[in-house]
Structure formats: C-alpha cells, structure tokens
C-alpha cells in the first residue's frame, strides 16, 4: 500500500467534505442477505459502486445490510436522503445504474421498481 497516495486521497476528499459540512448527501444500502445474493445482489452492489466511481460521486456512501424480510422483491436497494427513504425491489444491474443516475443524481424516483417511499424525520 502506498501510504503517500492514500494521504493525498484523504486530503482531497476531506476538502470536499468540508464544503458539504462532512455529511454524505445520499446513502445507498444493498441487501446482501442469502436471498438477495441468490437473486443477484453481488452484481447489483458491484454495478452501484462502479457507477458511483465512474461519476465521481464523493457525497454518496454505499453500504450493505442483511435480510430485510422482503425476499420476493430481492435484490433490494435503499436510497436514504434527508427526509425520505426509497426502497427499490427486483433490482438488476441495469436498474442499479438507473437508480444512481435518475434518483441519486437527478432526484427522480425510479417508479417501476419502487417498493416503498417513506418519509423520515430530518
């Protein structure tokens, strides 16, 4: 590992974090439970990370979670923003990329895969 390179990455990222007060604007959570993985969640997670990296979305955090109790709709992807959480189901690689572009970048819900849109207190 080249620590000097990591230090420079940190400096650049922290400078951008200061501009947005240290908060990730959006958190994307991919369901990586057994049924999610059987339905293709690994590929979905990979596609989301790839799209976030290609578009250099530094204010987006990508994480994973276990079973969510909605096996029939797996793979599931949640998009958390201030004030709302959108849960998408039956997500494949192409849909995952659409969620990043349409929802995360442009703020438009991907209606044809929406399972639930929940308001949350900010």
């Amino acid at each position: 590992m080249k620590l000097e390179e990591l230090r420079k990455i940190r400096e650049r990222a922290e400078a951008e974090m200061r501009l947005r007060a240290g908060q990730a604007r959006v958190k994307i959570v991919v369901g990586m439970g057994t049924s999610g993985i059987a339905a293709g969640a690994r590929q979905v997670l990979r596609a989301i990370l790839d799209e976030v990296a290609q578009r250099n979305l530094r204010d987006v955090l990508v994480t994973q979670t276990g079973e969510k109790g909605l096996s029939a709709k797996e793979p599931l992807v949640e998009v958390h923003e201030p004030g709302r959480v959108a849960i998408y189901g039956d997500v494949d690689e192409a849909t995952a990329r659409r969620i990043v572009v349409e929802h995360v970048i442009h703020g438009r819900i991907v209606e044809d895969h929406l399972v639930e849109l929940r308001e949350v207190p900010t």
Partner: protein
Amino acid sequence: MVEDLAFHVADLVENALRAGAKLVAVELAREGEFFRIRVEDDGAGMAEEQLRRAGDPFFTTKPGRRIGLGLAFLRQTAEELGGSFRIHSAPGKGTVVEAKIPWDHPDRPPLGDLCGTLLPLIATSPVEFRLVFRDHRYTWTLDTRELKKALGPVPLTDPEALSFLQRAMGEALAVLGWKEEG
C-alpha cells in the same frame, strides 16, 4: 453447478459476515501444486453438531432457510479434484475454513474475477478485513484497519479510494499471474 473460485471465497466471506464477525482474514495462496483458500473469522462459531453438518448441502444455520450450499460446493470441489477441505469452529471462537485445490487439475474451476467479486464486499462492509495473496516469491497484504487509519473519515467506497484499491489489487493479481479466468 460450477462456481468460480472467487465466488467460493465470496460465499465464505458472506458466511463470516452473517456469523457476526468483526474481523475476517482471507488468505489465497499458491503452495506447490495447490491453490489454498483460507478464511478465518471471529464470529459466533459453530457447535459440534453444526460443524459436523457444515458440509451437508441440506443444512444451514440461517433462520428460515432450508439449504446452505456454499460450504458443500467448496468441499465437493476440493475433494472431487483430489484436494482437501477442513473446517474448525467453536461457539464464541469463530470459524476457520480451508480448502486446497490442485492448481493444474483440468477440472479446476476458473479463478474468476477476484478483484470485482471481493472488493465490493470489503469496501461496503462495516467489519475489518485482512486479505493476503501470495505465492512462493510474492506476498500482497491489504488490511482495512490500516487503510481506514490512513483515510480517516473518507469511506472505502469513495471513488478515488476505491479506484486506488482496484489498482493495487489488480497489480498484485498481475504479479501473481492470477488474471481473471472463466
């Protein structure tokens, strides 16, 4: 069903995450005629009865699930090709799974995309990973605790951090000659 070896490793890592591990150590090594896969975790571990049945394709510890094929497939792959499979575990003490697979066997599953399969799991998981790739002349190590210390508040999924990790792992795989197969 043939899974590439990268998927087998991912299965073991996901088992460790579900067992509540805080640290997962993955070692992939060319040792003589064998390719060794070793995954150790500090998760919940398994009691003797669970352990005895861990390679049974119709046994799983996952609530609500009736099959648990991950370990069974790996055991079958290793043993059918003349390699070996072993698992050590105890409640509260974590689990170690190790498989040795003959590298030059014509039916060895392809390595698959180790970087593309493992990196998303590692970068998005809240637990720590120690990853070692090695052969007789080269050892490459990635420890997320060191990475996170160097990166501070910057997540491993940051585009630039992720690109750095992909490049570093890709270079290591190239040096080892473990390019994507299959």
